């Protein structure tokens, strides 16, 4: 570990020094302390690996891992690295295998990660082979701690990670269970994009209700998310997880729209099927966007549901993997509705395109900065939840926790 001489501005979480977005050493520490640290990382949905032997290749931080369904239906997440000479064993996104075999020298692991086959271990024609004291027990795949809840699977590199429920905390857990309520999920499809910005800007974006009322003409115009609607900001006690909750209003001017240049009263859809939401959750909320530290966003925007997984790719890029899903008992009409509303989200989404661009512009803005910091003062300087969305507290909470886990002292 390099010694990082970085100090947080004395204003605390109301400032984010620009070096967090592009410094390569900061990024290395993030990989170590955050993604390989005492966190729970999203790896997939149970329904993606329904049968024994099913596997999915994915990433935590920059490490390639394999999510595997064991023989008895149990779940494993292994580091995707042969213990012999380091080859990335699994090279398909999805599949089914009885065992995991490395192509190079065909060392073979069972689904639990135990090394069960070493060719020529006893030699050939009495010659060579592994030493007598070679013990396959010491050479199994590195396996991570795994936890599944409501059909969603998380893994941790840290064997001492706190239990997942404690990690989320009560408030966040309730919101998580709202979508993942035990019904079986159906994957509708994937989208993958490489966004040219630091991964944390994605989290900021989803924790940021401020921009939604201003940047997203589409959301504002059709009342899908707007500052003058009933809404809430919620966080866990440490500030790392968060949620933006909102209720759809009408497409009409309200108080506050004066400030919203984005409101276009005369924009009407020619094919209104695009916006034909139906209520499907017990509460009246129409949008709940939840961020689960460090790599997951759970999106419920009207009837479009998705997990968004964040995979950092150096300080200046991250990959965003969208898994759109529904419930097994969805009617065909409901499925079609979800698919249609998906037009708002993803790499070509009417709303998400704005965010991808904003993130790219931010990275372009801060990359060359030799000093300076973002200013987070909307709604005060605290890190508390709120019953409105005119605050950046949720982002402040995130950076408060971030500075802690990263071990950044304060500027003198």
């Amino acid at each position: 570990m390099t010694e990082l001489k970085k100090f947080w501005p004395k204003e605390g979480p109301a400032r984010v020094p620009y070096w967090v977005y592009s410094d390569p050493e900061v990024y290395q520490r993030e990989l170590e302390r955050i993604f390989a640290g005492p966190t729970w990382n999203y790896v997939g949905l149970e329904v993606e690996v329904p049968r024994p032997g099913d596997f999915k290749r994915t990433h935590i931080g920059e490490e390639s891992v394999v999510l595997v369904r064991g023989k008895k239906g149990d779940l494993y997440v292994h580091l995707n690295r042969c213990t012999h000479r380091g080859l990335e064993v699994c090279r398909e996104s999805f599949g089914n295998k009885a065992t995991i075999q490395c192509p190079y020298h065909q060392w073979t692991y069972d689904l639990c990660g135990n090394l069960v086959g070493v060719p020529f271990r006893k030699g050939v024609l009495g010659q060579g082979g592994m030493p007598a004291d070679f013990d396959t027990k010491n050479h199994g795949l590195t396996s991570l701690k795994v936890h599944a809840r409501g059909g969603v699977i998380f893994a941790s590199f840290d064997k001492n990670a706190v239990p997942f429920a404690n990690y989320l905390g009560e408030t966040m857990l309730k919101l998580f269970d709202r979508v993942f309520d035990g019904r079986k999920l159906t994957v509708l499809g994937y989208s993958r994009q490489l966004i040219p910005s630091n991964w944390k800007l994605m989290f900021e974006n989803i924790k940021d209700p401020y921009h939604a009322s201003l940047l997203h003409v589409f959301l504002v115009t059709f009342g899908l998310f707007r500052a003058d609607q009933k809404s809430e900001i919620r966080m866990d006690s440490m500030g790392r997880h968060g949620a933006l909750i909102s209720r759809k209003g009408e497409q009409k001017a309200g108080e506050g729209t004066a400030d919203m240049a984005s409101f276009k009263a005369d924009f009407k859809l020619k094919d209104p099927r695009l916006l034909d939401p139906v209520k499907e959750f017990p509460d009246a909320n129409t949008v709940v966007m939840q961020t689960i530290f460090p790599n997951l966003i759970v999106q419920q925007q009207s009837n479009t549901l998705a997990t968004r997984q964040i995979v950092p790719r150096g300080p200046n890029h991250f990959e965003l993997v969208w898994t759109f899903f529904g419930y097994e008992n969805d009617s065909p009409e409901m499925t079609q509705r979800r698919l249609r509303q998906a037009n708002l989200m993803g790499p070509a989404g009417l709303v998400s395109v704005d965010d991808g661009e904003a993130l790219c512009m931010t990275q372009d803005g801060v990359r060359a900065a030799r000093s300076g910091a973002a200013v987070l003062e909307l709604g005060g300087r605290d890190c508390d939840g709120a019953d409105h969305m005119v605050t950046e507290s949720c982002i402040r909470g995130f950076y408060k926790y971030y500075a802690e886990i990263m071990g950044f002292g304060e500027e003198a």
Partner: protein
Amino acid sequence: MKLSSLSDRDLRLEIESLLTDYAYVLDEGEIEKWPAFFTEQGLYKIVSRENFEKKLPLALWLSESRAMCEDRVTALRQASVYSPRVLRHLVTNVKILSHDGERVRAQSNFAILQTLLDGETHLFISGKYLDTIVSEGGKLVFEEKICVYDTLRIPNSVVWPV
């Protein structure tokens, strides 16, 4: 133009022209003319090769009608925020898959080059067009256009139609 009266070779030439005209409006930024390439109930989808092969229904973008295409255009013009970009379509390898007197199914390869603010030109995405084409009012239009893209890791956003 009557599809039924065209030889296979003439059909290919006509479809090449259609695809050229289609790409032209996108490259020239005349996006308002784009919806007219579809029938009124035309289906337009941008689908990843991954979803396509797994038969997962999700599209990157889905238009179930010409009107939905028009809504996309309006949104692009009035509702979306994005940096300037220039596209350049290379459409090649046009192949007739099947046809009867009514409709033709054709496949072609596309590569879209994109030039962003910094002035560098990059290969943006590639893939194949799977088209179902009919003749309406004397011109060819898409009854269905499925753009299956290879580029699973999309470079940021797909702002314009493919």
